[in-house]
């Protein structure tokens, strides 16, 4: 467990550093200003991983992480204003760039499978994506309009 925590912290810090540098280059936020926010995000992840280990439920760590993130930033939570203020300095899009860089390197191995897919598969798979995305958007639009939210 302790060894796991050490591994998680080191990896989160490494990904976090890439994120902070992307945050600096892409969004002009100096790494030192975004550091407290990144530390909070890493802390939330760590808390989620630890909860997953402690609580004997088959509940994924990402669910704990999401819930903790929501709770500590709700207005009644002590210090939530600082949590929100600091994490605002970490741009969402700056976090996604290193993730997709790792993903690309991992995906390289699936590439040979990908090019073996026939043209029919490509057409149908594209339609599945478009159908899911547009289908959800249309239903959401109808309900949001009905509720008067948009």
């Amino acid at each position: 467990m302790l060894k796991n925590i050490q591994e998680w912290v080191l990896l989160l810090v490494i990904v976090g550093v890439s994120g902070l540098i992307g945050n600096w280059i892409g969004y002009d936020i100096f790494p030192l200003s975004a550091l407290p926010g990144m530390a909070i995000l890493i802390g939330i992840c760590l808390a989620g991983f630890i909860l997953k280990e402690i609580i004997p439920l088959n509940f994924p760590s990402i669910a704990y992480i999401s819930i903790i993130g929501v709770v500590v930033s709700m207005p009644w939570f002590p210090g939530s204003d600082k949590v929100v203020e600091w994490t605002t300095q970490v741009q969402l899009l700056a976090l996604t760039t290193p993730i997709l860089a790792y993903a690309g390197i991992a995906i390289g191995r699936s590439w040979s499978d990908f090019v073996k897919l026939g043209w029919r598969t490509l057409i149908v798979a594209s339609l599945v994506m478009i159908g899911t995305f547009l289908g959800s958007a249309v239903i959401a639009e109808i309900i949001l309009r009905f509720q008067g939210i948009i």
Partner: protein
Amino acid sequence: MQDGNAAMGLWKDWRLHAIVLAIVIVTELIGTFRIKVGPGVVLLLPMLYALGIGIILYFTPAVKERQSVNAEPIIVLGVSLLLAKIGVIIGPSLPEVIAAGPALLLQELGHLVTILIALPVAIWLGMKREAIGMTHSIGREPNVGLIMDKYGMGSPEGRGVMAMYIFGTVFGAVFLGLLSGLLATITPLSPLSFALASGVGSGSMMAAASGSLIAAFPDLETQIVALSGASNLLSLSSGLWVSIFIALPLTEKLYGWMTRKKEGY
């Protein structure tokens, strides 16, 4: 992180982390490009270049098999950071997310629309039962598990869902990223509806789809992130049940009905 023990020592792969850092620096320096397509806009974001460069580097000596294997569990950690960030955006706007609750829940059923569109085309193109595996959902891990469990690894349905899985893995984020910016700018639908639609149940696809929306509508950033994040959580937790009880039986029925009709002619 179920296999936390198998993933020890990944932080020592400095070659991998240095390559990722280099990719981040290069792609963020390039920045975002907006390409006008008729009345709409396609957004090229640093994360999409990062994915592409990562895939290309895999085929160069810079990345060895080892880096590619090590990169996979790190994606989960990266997505965790992303979900923590989305969490702290949802927190302060929770009342708005709850207000959008009915839309949030019902748009999950939008995933079923894809069956009505993609299945007929698949059958028309001559696919057999592969079509069931391919079109019952967008084929992420839980769906692959479901199909393998029900039909078996080597079944036509299993081949279909694997094809969808591979397509989604390699191309899903890029595809949805380009699509969402374009659709949100050319259709009359609200960016918030597309934000809800972005939560398809895959972290990277959601990031790409909602990322394009944020870049296209920066004023709505908080609402877009909160709604897409909440929707993705809901898709992750309910997606399998929707597949088991609605999507897969519906696909089976529709397939049976359509192929019978075809044979009748």
